[in-house]
């Protein structure tokens, strides 16, 4: 009964706030929750959590309680973590009854047993899998979320500050932005991450700096025992700065199963530019629940290129862009190629909070075999965000006999002088096109690769970095041949 009531409270909350919850409200809810917890004597019966997942949930609670007294860092961080944990306790792990997780069942993931520490991480890992041919970068390597100074290279350049996140707690600019953005959403994994993250990086591109080379962050999963990592990043691009950021995800061949929760908060200041690439190349032992929250200031540009390839069994990406000032531009591009029994889910929110902004979103999914792709795109145009131009497109090729595509392109418009549109298609190979190519002596396999190439072209030709684009096109070809 209590659980039911709580669920209702939660749901109303979502409905009112769309994707964000306000702090005060969250606090009252937490208070209620505490009262209930008290009346139940310790742990409550969480309706959102099934018997099976009790273990990880309990494990996390224990982990939180144990670390509390020995918590390093300033008091304010303690407080933020405490609040976040309460929020997580309140929310619990999501189930498919939750609208945002309708097609994404995390129960099989969280019902497994994981270590919460990196004691079985490997000291020597190969990062060759993430190498991008002909691209010189500032390299940052995170092994199971932990910054590895030996493998990282060339990062000591003017205009670029990279710090392991645990060393950044006392920095003023860190405190100013940390947990200011992602924690306003109702994603339970963000709350959990804020409460319990252990590692990650804090990157600042200083005022007026234009970086010569891209920053390449390589996330390596290596632990030989099942591991649940929670990594936290904060990227601040200061005024007039420009940077390219590439994040690759790879898995060591002998790594055990691992579940990775990565939360990144990004602030793009006035007139700054950031090109941000995600290249999902991990192996099938790895599962990811990633959340990226971007805040943009006046005249800024943020481009996200989100690419997933066959491998990782389960990928969930939340990418939320808040256009929090006028004259802001954002582009979100995605190419997802799935194979085997993969599951890839991309949730995006483009939130137009101020007038005179422009956003452009284009996601392409290609599903092979028995894989599943999910796309959930949401454009908000808030009251008074006049003169907004927002565009959203999602095209899908369903190739696999038993694969599935679920897509939800949504618009929520509260201003009248706007131009917003979205489109969505699901289709297959065009038989006529295939015939045309084959009649000209091109093998069927090659013809298919060509057609997929052409399908993805709308997105890949918008990549700002030609070397990355070539690399991605190559990965698409490779993914099709092996698939």
């Amino acid at each position: 009964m209590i659980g039911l009531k709580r669920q209702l409270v939660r749901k109303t909350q979502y409905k009112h706030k769309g994707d964000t919850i306000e702090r005060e409200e969250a606090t009252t809810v937490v208070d209620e929750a505490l009262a209930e917890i008290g009346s139940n004597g310790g742990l409550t019966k969480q309706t959102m959590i099934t018997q099976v997942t009790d273990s990880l949930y309990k494990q996390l609670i224990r982990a939180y309680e144990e670390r509390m007294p020995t918590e390093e860092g300033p008091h304010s961080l303690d407080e933020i973590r405490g609040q976040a944990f309460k929020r997580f306790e309140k929310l619990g792990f999501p189930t498919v009854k939750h609208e945002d997780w309708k097609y994404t069942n995390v129960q099989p993931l969280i019902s497994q047993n994981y270590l919460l520490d990196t004691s079985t991480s490997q000291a020597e890992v190969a990062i060759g899998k993430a190498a991008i041919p002909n691209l010189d970068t500032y390299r940052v390597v995170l092994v199971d979320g932990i910054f590895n100074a030996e493998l990282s290279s060339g990062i000591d350049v003017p205009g670029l500050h990279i710090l392991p996140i645990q060393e950044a707690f006392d920095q003023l600019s860190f405190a100013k932005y940390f947990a200011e953005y992602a924690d306003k959403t109702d994603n339970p994994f963000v709350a959990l991450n804020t409460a319990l993250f252990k590692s990650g990086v804090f990157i600042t591109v200083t005022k007026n700096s234009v970086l010569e080379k891209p920053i390449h962050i390589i996330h390596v999963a290596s632990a030989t025992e099942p591991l649940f990592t929670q990594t936290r990043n904060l990227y601040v691009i200061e005024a007039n700065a420009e940077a390219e950021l590439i994040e690759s995800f790879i898995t060591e061949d002998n790594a055990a199963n691992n579940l990775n929760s990565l939360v990144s908060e990004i602030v793009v200041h006035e007139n700054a530019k950031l090109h941000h690439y995600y290249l999902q190349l991990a192996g099938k032992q790895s599962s990811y629940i990633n959340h990226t929250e971007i805040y943009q200031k006046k005249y800024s540009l943020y481009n996200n290129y989100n690419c997933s390839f066959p491998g990782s069994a389960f990928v969930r990406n939340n990418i939320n862009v808040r256009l929090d000032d006028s004259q802001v531009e954002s582009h979100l591009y995605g190419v997802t190629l799935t194979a085997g029994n993969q599951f890839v889910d991309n949730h995006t929110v483009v939130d137009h909070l101020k007038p005179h902004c422009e956003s452009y979103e284009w996601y392409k999914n290609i599903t092979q075999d028995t894989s599943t792709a999910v796309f959930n795109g949401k454009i908000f145009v808030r009251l008074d965000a006049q003169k907004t131009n927002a565009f959203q497109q999602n095209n899908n090729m369903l190739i696999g006999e038993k694969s599935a595509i679920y897509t939800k392109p949504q618009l929520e418009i509260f201003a009248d002088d706007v131009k917003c549109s979205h489109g969505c298609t699901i289709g297959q190979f065009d038989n006529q096109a295939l015939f045309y190519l084959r009649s000209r002596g091109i093998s069927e396999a090659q013809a298919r690769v060509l057609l997929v190439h052409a399908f993805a072209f709308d997105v890949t030709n918008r990549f700002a970095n030609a070397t990355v684009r070539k690399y991605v096109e190559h990965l698409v070809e490779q993914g099709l041949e092996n698939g």
Partner: protein
Amino acid sequence: MSTKDNELLKELTLEEYKYGFTTDIEMDIAPIGLTEDTVRMISAKKNEPEWLLEWRLKALRHFLQMDMPTWQNFDHPAVSFQDISYYAAPKAKPKLNSLDEVDPELLSTFAKLGIPLDEQKVLAGVVAVDAVFDSVSVKTTFREKLKEQGVIFCSFGEAVQEHPELVKQYLGSVVPQTDNIYAALNSAVFSDGSFVYIPKGVRCPMELSTYFRINAENTGQFERTLIIADEGAYVSYLEGCTAPMRDENQLHAAVVELIALKDAEIKYSTVQNWYPGDKDGKGGIYNFVTKRGICKGDNSKISWTQVETGSAITWKYPGVILKGDNSVGEFYSVALTRNRQVADTGTKMIHLGKNTKSKIISKGISAGHSHNSYRGLVKIAAGAENSRNFTQCDSLLIGDRCGAHTFPYIENRNKSAKLEHEATTSKIGEDQLFYLTQRGIDPEKAVGLIVNGYAKEVLNQLPMEFAVEAQKLLAISLEGSVG
């Protein structure tokens, strides 16, 4: 917005609801409240067989256990189910044989509504009408003529008495009692409605039509419509609705079930003009309706057309289950909201059979402080080979305090299906307005022209006589709204 716009908006909001009169007629009203006794009382009044009473009671038990949904895109009003009366009928009189015996007050009500109840006046005989006053079907015209062809068109109560086998076979077969809370409520307490059966191979010679009128205070209207088109049959059916102006909200929770057998076609059109409440959102009808059709046989077709201009809250998703191979489902909708009205409407197309096709055209127009949502589901099951869907949902915003929302769900599990979805949101183009005005057309007419052009695709689907009516309705509702 300019002052002129404001004036025009003001005018628009004050536009009177011309059907807001009440009729003073002796009514038989059930005591307020909902218990098993209420259901028994309704059933007894209708002289229903035992199985139907059982069916109702089963629905009631479900209803009592169900929770209010919370996923909708508006604040669900607190409906107190114990504070309304579930049955209201003009005082029982001996069975009527001709129109002369109908209460003249009632006749004049329908005359005010412009419903050609009087057979003498419509000798041309294009439309057969079933008029439902509060909860009871008052008079069905042209019954004899339809009977010659074997067409059954009568009130639901009569059908239960005269054709129990048909009712028993199909009642609840498309919308089960447990479908949703309002369907359960309707199943428990429905008082009357229309019943149509078109026998094999018959093309119904005239349009069938029902007019619904809520008259009494503190009552809910719960009617039930069941239309069965046997093999190769065709029928076009239209419903229209009005209600008096009252300060409190009234509930209308109907259920409509359509069954199309092999090669049959059903065309169902709605012109909904319930009282929308005043400009501050006081009063008005809650229009929570469950409408669903099933294309049971091969090559069958169901087409929904709706013009929604009334109701404080419109909440319905007329859907089609495409079970037969080669079956076709269509949904055409114009929803106009103004003042504080809310419309959360759309459709569900469930493709199960091979070569099934569906087409969705939805046009939303929001003015004032109103909110208009399109919510639709297109689901392609694994076995629905070569299915095809086309969806277009456009929104037009008039004024900067209204909202337009789009929530499409697209789920595909089949390799050979092709789906398209597109949506746009915009205001009335200034260049379009300028073009028309500079040719000497005044702004008001110009807006009328543009909106009618915008909605034409849907209005064209209505039967001729009603298309004219709907066009006028749109024009009245939009008068003076230069945006």
